[in-house]
C-alpha cells in the first residue's frame, strides 16, 4: 500500500515523534517496502480462523512495599526533593 507523507505525519504525531523532511521521505519509503513484503497476510481470511479464547491473569491486589522515592527521583531528568519537574501542562496542551 502507498504510504503518503500525510500518513507518515499522522502516525508520527500519534507516536509523539518529530521527523525531519528527509526522515519522513525515508521512513515512508521503508514502511511501504516493509508492508509490501507482508503480502502473506493478505492470503489469510479472518472468517476462516477460529476465535482464540483469552483470559487475563491478574495477581491478587495486595499492598506491597514501594520503592524509595529518593532513589526513584535520582533517575529523573529534573526533580526537586519530592516531585519530578516538567513544563506546565495546563492551558497550552498539544494539538489533537
Amino acid at each position, binding site marked *: 500500500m502507498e504510504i503518503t507523507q500525510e*500518513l*507518515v505525519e*499522522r*502516525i*508520527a504525531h*500519534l*507516536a*509523539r*515523534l*518529530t*521527523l525531519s523532511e528527509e*526522515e519522513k521521505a525515508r*521512513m515512508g519509503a*521503508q*514502511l511501504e*517496502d*516493509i*508492508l*509490501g*513484503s*507482508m*503480502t*502473506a*497476510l493478505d*492470503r*489469510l481470511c*479472518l472468517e476462516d*480462523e*477460529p476465535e*482464540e479464547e483469552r483470559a487475563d*491473569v*491478574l*495477581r491478587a491486589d495486595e499492598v506491597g512495599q514501594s*520503592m*524509595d522515592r529518593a*532513589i*526513584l527521583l*535520582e*533517575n*529523573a*531528568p*529534573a526533580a526537586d526533593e519530592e516531585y*519530578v519537574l*516538567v*513544563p*506546565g*501542562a495546563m492551558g*497550552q*496542551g*498539544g*494539538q489533537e
Partner: protein
Amino acid sequence: MNDLLTLSALELGTAIRAGEVSVEEAVRAALTVAGADNAFVTLAGERALERAGKLQKQVKGAQSPLFGVPMTLKDNICTVGMPTTCGSNMLKDYRSPYDATVVERLNGIEAVCLGKTNMDEFGMGSTCETSVFGPVRNPWCAGRVAGGSSGGGAAAVARGAGWFALGSDTGGSVRLPAAWCGVTGIKPTYGTVSRYGLAAYASSFDQIGTVCRDAADCAAVLDVIQGQDPRDSTSLPGPYGHLLERLSGDVRGMRIGLPVPCFGEGLDEEVRRSVLEVAQILRHRGAEVEECPMPAMEYALSSYYVMACAQASSNLARYDGLRFGYRTRDCRTLEDLYKKSRSEGFGAEVKRRILLGTFVLSAGYYEAYYKKALAARERIKREFTRLFERYDLLLTPVSPGPPPELGESLGDPARMYLQDTYTVCANLAGLPALSMPCGFHAEGLPMGAQLVGPAFGEEKVLNAAHACQLETDFHKRRPALRKGAVRNEMGDGHRP
C-alpha cells in the same frame, strides 16, 4: 592463563572448586580479551576482581557448578551499580534502582559479572549494528556483523570474555548471534525465565536466554535462571531444574522433523548442507529424521513483525522524557518535551518499528494487519501442536546465510528482517529453541543449526544438541585474536 579461555563454563567451575584455578585468575584471563569486538557497553573489571577476591574465600563451601564463573549480561537486563542503557541514547545515563530476577539468581549461585554487553538498540535489529555505542564486530571476521540483538554477549563468549552470557530473544536475538559467532544459545520456553527487570520490547515474545560454549553449559545456566517469579505475571509454574543431570546425549528413538519450508528458496547451499549433516549425526546416534510439511510458516515473518512492532510502539511509550531517560534541553510545552525527547533519544530502527507498530494498530489498518497477524500466530501455534504430536523436535537452519558485511543491512530493513525467517516461529509459539554451531562457511564464518522443541521441551532440545556436540568439535573452535583487536584491556566504568 589463556588456556583457561578454551574451557567450558562447567570445566572452569570444576577447576575453581578443585582449587586448580582461582576466581581472580579466571576474571583476569577474561579481561585480557574483553576489549575486542566492541562487545561491551560497560566493562566492570575492578568490580569483578573485587568480587572474585571475596568469593575465593568461600570456594570450599561452593555448591553450584557455576560458582565463581565470570559471565556477562546484555545491557537490557537491569542491574544495580552498573548502567542499563539498552544500547540507546534514551537510557545512556539510566541506573536501575533494582536488579532483575535473573541477576538475583546468578548472584545467589555466586557467578561473577564482568559487565554489560552491547546490543541492538532496545533489542531491535538482527545484526547488532543499531546500538548508539556502535556495531559489534564478528570475532571470526572483523568486517562482518556479529548478529543481533544479543551480539555483544555472543561475541564475548566466542572470544572468551566471560564463560556464558545472558541475552534476550524476541525474534531470534539469542540464536542468531550465537550462530554467527560460533557458540551455542538457547531461548527457553516463554514464561520459564522471569522477565522482571528485562527492558520490554515485545512482551509476548521477549524471553531471557543464554549464550554458552556448549549445550551442557546452557543446561547448567537454565537450571539457575528458570523458575516462576511472582513479579512476572507471565511466568509459569515448573517443574524446573535437573536439566544438567539429565543430559545424556541419548537420542535413540527420538523423532525429528525437518520442516520443508525451512530448506527451500533463499537458503544458502553451504548452510543447507551443514544442517543436513546435523540430521545425519542424529540419525547415526539412533534418531529418526524425516521431512515434514509446515505450511503456516509462510505467515511467520509478517505476523512476527506486525505484532512485535505493535507491542514495541506501546511498550516504548513510557520513554517520554519525564520520570527517567533522556530529556531534550530545548522545549517550551509538554507536547514539545515528549516529541523532542523521543525523537532525539531514539535511533532510526527504533523509530521505524514504533511507526510501523503505531500504523498497524491505528484505525483503518488494525483489521488488515494486526488482527490478521494475531490469527496467523494462532495458526502457527496450532501447526506446532500438530507437529509435536508426531515429532519430538524440529531441526532447521538458524539463518538463511552467513553473517552479512558491516553496514550492508542498515539501509534495507525489509531485507534485514529476512534474517529472522527461521527463528521467529519459536517466539510466536513460545517454544524452546537452541542454536548450535554446525560448520564453517567459506572465509571461516560460523553457521548454526536450530533445534525447536515443544513447550517445556528444553531437556529434549539440549539432549539432541549435546548428542551432536559429542560427535563434532565445531563448538570447541575459537576465533584467532588479531593484533590490535583488544581496545581497552582493563577498562572500567561506563562508555562515553
